[in-house]
């Protein structure tokens, strides 16, 4: 199958810090890939490059077979939910419907799609609530609904369950399990449970290098690399 999104020998530095060191990763259509690794491994940087928010110093990103020179053309098809999502001032509906509004959709369609997106993340009826009044878990789900509302081809999630309590983690996990059939999802997460139960493939990255990629069974059951083994056993954070 032709990959929908490819990163080829991608290098990225911030000053003297080498965040990514020659990462190559192919992601197929409607596949869910989980990127795991310790703090500072480069997971977020990789996600930002795949989201076309950052340009690699070396290497390239290809989307649907086409080398990406500027993010502008594909934005909206590839969307990203950040670890600490930022919200526009206003209501839940204002936020979730933003992507549709800039596409020039009529108010009625926006209202319907916002309602559907909120229902998908178990937040039905939250349209008129102010963002400020939401809990951390609800905010995370609003951010997810906002991304899903525009029906992207690729959804990139950076630590979608970070700082959430177990019931909220479970809610996010259930939402991801439900939506993953029709969308390509890349999740960068510390939450190994999420990688085990949601991902089709798991990639382990360490100090900016992709050390291992395979099925969740292989990565968590028979990791090939010593560092992967240490990480999945919780001995490396």
């Amino acid at each position, binding site marked *: 199958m032709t990959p929908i999104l490819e990163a080829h020998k991608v290098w990225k530095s911030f000053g003297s810090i080498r965040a990514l060191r020659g990462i190559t990763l192919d992601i197929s259509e409607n596949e869910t890939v989980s990127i795991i690794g310790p703090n500072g491994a480069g997971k977020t940087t990789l996600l930002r490059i795949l989201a076309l928010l950052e340009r690699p110093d070396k290497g390239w990103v290809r989307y649907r077979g086409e080398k990406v020179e500027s993010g502008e053309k594909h934005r*909206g098809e590839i969307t990203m939910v950040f670890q600490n999502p930022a919200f*526009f001032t206003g209501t839940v509906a204002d936020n979730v419907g*933003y992507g549709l509004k*800039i596409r020039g959709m009529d108010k009625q369609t926006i209202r319907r799609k916002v309602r559907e997106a909120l229902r998908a993340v178990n937040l039905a009826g939250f349209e008129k609530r102010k963002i400020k009044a939401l809990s951390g878990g609800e905010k995370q789900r609003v951010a997810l609904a906002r*991304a899903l509302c525009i029906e992207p081809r690729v959804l990139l999630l950076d630590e979608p369950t970070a700082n959430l309590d177990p019931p909220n983690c479970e809610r996010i996990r259930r939402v991801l399990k439900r939506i993953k059939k029709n969308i390509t999802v890349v999740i960068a997460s510390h939450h190994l449970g999420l990688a085990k139960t949601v991902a089709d493939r798991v990639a382990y990255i360490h100090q900016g290098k992709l050390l291992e990629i395979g099925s969740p069974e292989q990565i968590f059951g028979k990791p090939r690399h010593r560092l992967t083994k240490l990480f999945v056993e919780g001995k490396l954070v």
Partner: protein
Amino acid sequence: MSEGLIPIVLRSLMVSGTATVLAATWSLPIAVKIGTTHFRGKKIVRDFFNAMIGIPTVALGLVLYLLLSREGALGFLNLLYTPSAIMLGQALLITPLMISFLMHAIEEVNPLIKETALTLGASEREANRVVLREAKKGSVLATVAGFNRAISELGIALMVGGNLAGTTRVMTTEISRVVSGGDIELAIQLTIVLLSIAFTSTLILNRLRGSE
């Protein structure tokens, strides 16, 4: 020759209001560009605009006078001693202030706001609009501060306006003129009006900020 208080007040409001609008039209895109991008020398640019806030109005007035006078580079425009000359001068005067205030307000906005808009399919322009909306309080502050600075300056209005009755006479130039002529009562009346305008605009600003 003297003219009534009301035409002078109205002219002042019109001239400084137009200058503020004019300054906002170029200050907004400049501030957004500087505020939302990272580039080498950004600190120098920011320091430059901050330093320019305190430029003496007579210095700017003199430069403009030399440019707009018949022998000057812009003499062909025939703007000297017209309300347009004062508008242009005041707009230039308040530009650093507006850029500085706007830049600060934009930099206070979470950078993820712009990136979120971009990942949801917004163009660069649409994403910048979102950032500006989030920086609304700072934008209002910049506009009111700019207007107050424009309406209360004297040097530019005097040097490129010439304080001509019926055309370029504004509150500050009239206060200066009537004080020289010994009419302290009118000077006090005009000063009260000037202060009232400045206070009212600040009160409106505080009201707007408080209502959010």
